[in-house]
């Protein structure tokens, strides 16, 4: 069973590596969105450092969301999704490998790039570290919850916009705790409570989201 999980993971990573522009698109989207805010708001460092946690988190949220439609679309088009549905291994288990691959491809680069953008926003050093921790804890949730939305809208007309409508309200707790952790540490308070809650949300979605995604895929494909 673990072997299958690793195979699915390796396959998805390989597919992503063969189309590197897809990874770059997500990353550039994140960079561009977060660069727009200083242009719209003004270059005062005090203002920028106070909005930085929220802006970076919202940009990470949107970057994770625009890549969701790719999660199952190609597999559904070439029929390999149906093979996964027929596989003897539990579908939720295979789906979790795909979600993990999606996070490695779309979530992790954003986590690694975020402190660089944070520097441009004149964020204090401690807050930069908390930003990395919070994104590391929070972005898997975005991929996990997003997978439910991607599976529900698979092959539906206008699915790109629809997935935003479905998934963004469910992202709100992650956004609040993630941006809250960074803001708390920027104000010199402990970010521990926020990070704990963020981890709790992540663990809950880690348990439930693959099951819900598997159910949604069965509904979509039947």
């Amino acid at each position, binding site marked *: 069973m673990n072997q299958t999980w690793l195979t699915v993971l390796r396959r998805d990573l390989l597919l992503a590596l063969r189309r590197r522009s897809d990874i770059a698109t997500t990353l550039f989207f994140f960079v561009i969105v977060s660069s727009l805010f200083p242009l719209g708001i003004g270059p005062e460092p005090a203002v920028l450092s106070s909005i930085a946690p929220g802006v970076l988190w919202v940009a990470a949220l949107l970057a994770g969301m625009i890549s969701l439609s790719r999660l199952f679309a190609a597999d559904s088009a070439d029929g390999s999704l149906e093979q996964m549905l027929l596989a003897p291994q539990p579908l939720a288990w295979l789906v979790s490998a795909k979600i993990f691959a999606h996070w490695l491809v779309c979530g992790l680069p954003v986590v690694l790039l975020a402190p660089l953008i944070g520097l441009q926003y004149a964020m204090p050093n401690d807050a930069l570290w908390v930003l990395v921790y919070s994104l590391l804890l929070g972005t898997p949730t975005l991929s996990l919850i997003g997978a439910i939305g991607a599976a529900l809208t698979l092959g539906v007309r206008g699915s790109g916009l629809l997935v935003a409508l479905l998934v963004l309200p*469910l992202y*709100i707790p992650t956004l609040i705790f993630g941006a809250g952790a960074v803001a708390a540490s920027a104000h010199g308070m402990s970010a521990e409570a926020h990070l704990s809650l963020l981890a709790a949300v992540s663990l809950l979605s880690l348990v439930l989201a693959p099951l819900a995604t598997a159910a949604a895929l069965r509904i979509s494909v039947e």
Partner: protein
Amino acid sequence: MHMNWFKYSSPQTFYPLAGKMIPWFFWAASLLCAVGLYVSFAIAPTDFQQGEAYRIIFVHVPAAWMSMFIYLVMAGWAAMGLALNARLSAMMAQALAPTGAMFTLLALVTGSLWGKPMWGTWWVWDARLTSELILLFLYLGFMALQSSIDDPRRADRAGALLALVGVVNVPIIYFSVKWWNTLHQGSSINMGVAPKMAATMLLGMLLMALAFWMYSVAVALMRVRCIMLERERSSDWVQSLSAKGSK
């Protein structure tokens, strides 16, 4: 006595039953609404701090209650539809969503109308206001998903799953927004209901809530009748119904 609990779970038998029930619920709604409005506007005393403007809560609070209650009922029907694979349950969930969204919008609008004279602003990022807004987004997502899937069976099941995911998330969203609010804003505005509410005020609110409840049932039944006719248009019972109607 043996009773068949599933007798009314088929559209064919439920359609006439719903038709018979609708006028009753409408009468109950209008009666309760008339009494409720009389109690709230003529009997309930003027609030000593807020003046007459507080009377909007007789619409606002019941609407907010209904908006949350309908989401729960909708998710309940959706779960039944998924678990028992019953067509009618999914249709009920679909029929309830617009009414729930309407009450959510009503609660938001009346809330901001109340906020203007009381707080001096139309909108505050208060925990309850914000979570009510997110509830509206959840309703809109449910309706958008259902309407964008052409196959009704898939639309039902996808919508049901989304409603269930939403129900798991509602408490998490509510508490996250609440904590976010207390951390960001301080208690500049205390939205807590007055500790000693006059008994007549409570009565007015309860009567209005019951009226809204009856109205929701009536409207949902009307809508589910339309959905049944639309979905089962090629079946025999709808054909014979329309043949009877055209005579």
